[in-house]
Every structure is written in structure tokens, then in C-alpha cells.
């Protein structure tokens, strides 16, 4: 028998943990809910940190729930404190301030952390972007004429490059791969983003590795394999993220590219759940293939799903992955996993906007990647997402023809 007064404990007060806490109350759970986070802020949205919000004079947090709302909902938020150990037998978590929190059910929503560049010579002018605190520190350097080197041509680096240009900084992006956005973004779309950056004055160096970095605290000197050398006032490293699994691993939970959970987001301990960036889970739409997603909507949906399953709803994860990015006036959206595709059909939407539909060998729609000005691709990507969820096999001619509404394919 569990003691109901222990309640629900959530470790990690980010997108996923915050949403999970709110969801527990929306589900009318009336026991104690405790949200533990090592950042000093209430749960907030990370995507604005690398986008337009960065550009404002005094960037502010975009809170998911203010301290007042958390208090109103009787969600206890313990901030600036880390969870350091889980005692599974005693059903309790030990915190860095020495206190111990007993739980009935525990949710690990510890997120991910920037992958560190494994290289000597890094110093105070070599930084990463994950938190609001990181963002403020970077923002202070994004002034006209300052030279910003961005190591890694992924989404966070490129979005930050766009923001830095808007503020008048000079920006160089260094990418070791032959092109930017190698992972998950089709070359046709990456090319458009590349061109947009070049047109805005960003220098992009692809296919060139870094051989050395020297940071004397005032400037960073970077030597590339191709012989080029550049100096920068700040180097932002954006080479991917790794799941935060230390706490779970030490507690003996199964780790497999993240905290391994089942379709209900339950870890190898039935009273401990994991959700969001920190977990790997079986993705039903692709035959249960185990994946880990670093995406905002996934963190939201999994937070809410974990909350339901902590209350024993027994509901399986069934969502289709979805991701977006904004750079300059362009918006990109991707539904599904494009690496599941074997062939591609293009649909033009006007104004340069287009969608690539990715089809599996058997004709099943498995992903859709779109780019265009404003929200030009949004509606069709959303419809594609529903078609993917239904495991539909739409005729390629219909997908390619602007004259045929995608909504009509959904009804078929």
C-alpha cells in the first residue's frame, strides 16, 4: 500500500515537468505535487531563447506557469536545487540541500544538456545555449560589429546566427559536415536556409573541422583543418545535446540513448516515469522503433501523457513527432521521421513555399518537411501529420498536385 500523502514528485522544472504538474491538477489529482528544478526560474519556454526574443533589448522569460499560478494550483515549486539521488526502495528523492522528498510516483523530466566540444583550449568566451541564463550571457555579446563564431550548423546555432545578424553582429558558422542541418532536414530545404543566411551576410563554412581553439578570455582564435584561421569575440557551441540521465542511471534504471521507457512512459521501475528530452521510447507510428526526441511539442505531450499514466490511465503514446524552426522570415516545419522515407514527392504552395512528402517503400506517408515564408506550410504539414498518424498511403500524384486539397485525402 502506498501512502497517498506522499504524492507526485517531478524532477526537472522545464517544458515537460511544468506541463506534467499542470496536467496533474487539470486531471483533478488533489494530492501533493512537487516540482523540483535546478534553475532559479519558474518553468519557461526554451524556443524563444535562440529566436526573436533574443533580439529584444531586455529579453524576458516566457513562463509556462508563473510562481503565482503554481501557488494557486498548490504545486510546490522547489527551485535552484538539484535532485541528487533516488532511493527506490524507500520511494524518496534526496536533494542537494540535504532534504528528502518521499513520493508515490516519480517523474524524471530532466531534459537534455548541450554536447560539449571535446577539445582543449576552451575558455570563458566559449559558451553553450540551453538556459535563460545562458541566453542573457550570449545576448550581452550580440552587439553591432562584434564577431560571433557559431560552431555547429544545427537549428540552435542557425537561429542564433539570424538573431545575431539582426543585432548587427558579424557571424561565421562552422560546420564539419558537408552541409548544414544534416540530421533530419532534406538537402533541398537545408539549401534554402543556407541561402537565406548568406543573403543576410552570415558566413557559412561547411566541411571544415576545427583543429584548435585558443580562448584567452578576451577573444577566441579558431584554426580550421583547411588552413583558415578566424578570431571571434564569442564562440557559441551548438553541436547537439545529450540526455540528462545521471540520476536515473545511478538509481539503476535502464538507460538506452536516454532513460528507457515503455509506451506508457514508465521506466524499468514501475513507479518511476520519464518524459521529454531525457527519455527514449517506442514510437508506435513506426512499428515501435525506439527514439529519443528533442522537441518542444513532444515534451509537452509527453508531460501530459506521463501525468495521466501516473494516475494509472494506461494510455499508450501515439503522437507523430513534430518540429519547427524560424529563421528570418522563413518557417520550417517537419512532421514524422524523414529517414523512414524511401522516395519523395514535392508539392509547391506558391511564394516559394513547398513541402516534401516522404514515402516508405510500401507507399505509406512517413514524414513531411516544409519551408516557406510566414506560416505558409503550417496547415498542410498539420494535415500530413494526421495522414502519417493514420498510416495512410495517399497517391503520390495527389500529394504532388496543388489542385487537390490534402484535407480531402484525410477523409478518404
Amino acid at each position, binding site marked *: 500500500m502506498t501512502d497517498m500523502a506522499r504524492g507526485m514528485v517531478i524532477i526537472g522544472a522545464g517544458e515537460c515537468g511544468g*506541463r506534467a504538474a499542470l496536467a496533474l491538477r487539470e486531471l483533478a489529482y488533489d494530492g501533493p505535487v512537487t516540482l523540483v528544478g535546478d534553475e532559479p526560474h519558474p518553468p519557461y*519556454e526554451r524556443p524563444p531563447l535562440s529566436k526573436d526574443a533574443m533580439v529584444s533589448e531586455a529579453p524576458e522569460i516566457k513562463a*509556462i506557469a508563473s510562481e503565482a499560478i503554481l501557488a494557486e494550483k498548490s504545486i510546490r515549486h522547489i527551485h535552484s536545487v538539484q535532485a541528487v539521488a533516488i532511493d527506490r526502495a524507500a520511494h524518496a528523492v534526496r536533494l542537494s540541500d540535504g532534504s528528502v522528498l518521499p513520493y508515490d510516483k516519480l517523474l524524471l523530466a530532466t531534459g537534455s544538456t548541450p554536447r560539449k566540444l571535446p577539445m582543449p583550449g576552451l575558455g570563458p568566451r566559449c559558451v553553450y545555449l540551453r538556459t535563460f541564463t545562458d541566453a542573457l550571457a550570449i545576448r550581452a555579446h550580440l552587439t553591432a560589429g562584434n564577431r560571433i563564431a557559431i560552431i555547429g550548423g544545427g537549428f540552435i546555432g542557425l537561429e542564433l546566427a539570424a538573431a545575431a545578424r539582426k543585432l548587427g553582429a558579424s557571424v561565421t558558422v562552422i560546420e564539419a559536415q558537408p552541409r548544414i542541418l544534416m540530421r533530419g532536414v532534406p538537402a533541398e530545404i537545408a539549401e534554402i536556409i543556407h541561402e537565406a543566411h548568406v543573403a543576410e551576410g552570415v558566413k557559412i563554412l561547411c566541411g571544415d573541422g576545427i583543429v584548435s581553439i585558443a580562448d584567452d578570455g578576451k577573444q577566441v582564435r579558431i584554426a580550421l583543418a583547411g588552413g583558415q584561421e578566424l578570431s571571434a569575440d564569442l564562440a557559441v557551441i551548438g553541436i547537439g545535446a545529450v540526455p540528462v540521465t545521471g540520476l536515473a542511471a545511478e538509481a539503476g534504471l535502464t538507460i538506452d540513448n536516454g532513460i528507457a521507457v515503455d509506451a506508457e512512459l514508465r521506466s524499468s521501475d514501475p513507479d518511476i516515469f520519464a518524459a521529454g528530452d531525457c527519455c527514449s521510447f517506442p514510437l508506435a507510428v513506426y512499428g515501435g522503433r525506439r527514439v529519443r526526441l528533442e522537441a*518542444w*511539442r513532444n515534451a*509537452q505531450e509527453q508531460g*501530459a501523457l506521463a501525468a495521466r499514466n501516473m494516475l494509472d490511465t494506461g494510455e499508450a503514446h501515439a503522437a507523430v513527432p*513534430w518540429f*519547427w524552426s524560424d529563421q528570418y522570415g522563413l*518557417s520550417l516545419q517537419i512532421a514524422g521521421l524523414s529517414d523512414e522515407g524511401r522516395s519523395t514527392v514535392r508539392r509547391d504552395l506558391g511564394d516559394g513555399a513547398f513541402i516534401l512528402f516522404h514515402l516508405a517503400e510500401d507507399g505509406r506517408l512517413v514524414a513531411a518537411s516544409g519551408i516557406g515564408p*510566414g*506560416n*505558409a506550410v*503550417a*496547415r498542410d504539414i*498539420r*494535415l500530413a501529420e494526421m495522414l502519417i498518424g493514420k498510416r495512410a498511403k495517399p497517391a503520390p500524384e495527389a500529394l504532388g498536385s496543388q489542385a487537390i486539397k490534402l*484535407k480531402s485525402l484525410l477523409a478518404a
Partner: protein
Amino acid sequence: MNDWVEACATGDIDEEDVMRFDHGGRTFAIYRSPDDEFFATDGLCTHEKVHLADGLVMDDIIECPKHNGRFNYKTGDARGAPVCVNLKTYPVKVDAGKVLIQIG
């Protein structure tokens, strides 16, 4: 102040669809439900102020194009993350094939 303003012709909006309408420096979204009724709300999402008319209408829900926030366009109620602030709604009437909205 409480005048009825002509927004569009009934035929301008497909069933289960949405249209943008700008008036007096403000933006509205006009909806035609699957059962052929018309509705109006503020045109910008309460999450990050993007045009809802670029979104998708399904039954009585408008889904925001930017991050898929959902609202019931008949009541304005926010229906799930990331939106939490409701939309303002406006009275609508149809007269001689025109859709009129009352902008308060």
C-alpha cells in the same frame, strides 16, 4: 460603436474553414463550421500573436499554425498547450449572402 461590419460573402469561406478579416487596424478570424454556421474571433493567437486564419479548422476547433495551440472558435476557449489565454469572440449574422460581425 456596436455597428455591424460586413466581413465577406458567405461563399468566400469554405465549409470547415477560416478567413482573415482586417478592419479598423484590427484583425479578426471568420469561421464557417462543418454544419454551415458562421463565427468570429480575434484574429491573432494569444500565445505569440500569429494569424489564426493560416491555421486549420476541425469541427469546432481552430488550430494555430505556429505551434498548434487550440481554441474552440465558437466560445473562444483555449483548449490545450501552449495556449492558455482565451480568444475574444464576436456576434455574427448572415444577411443577403453577406457575413456581418459586430465589433464591440
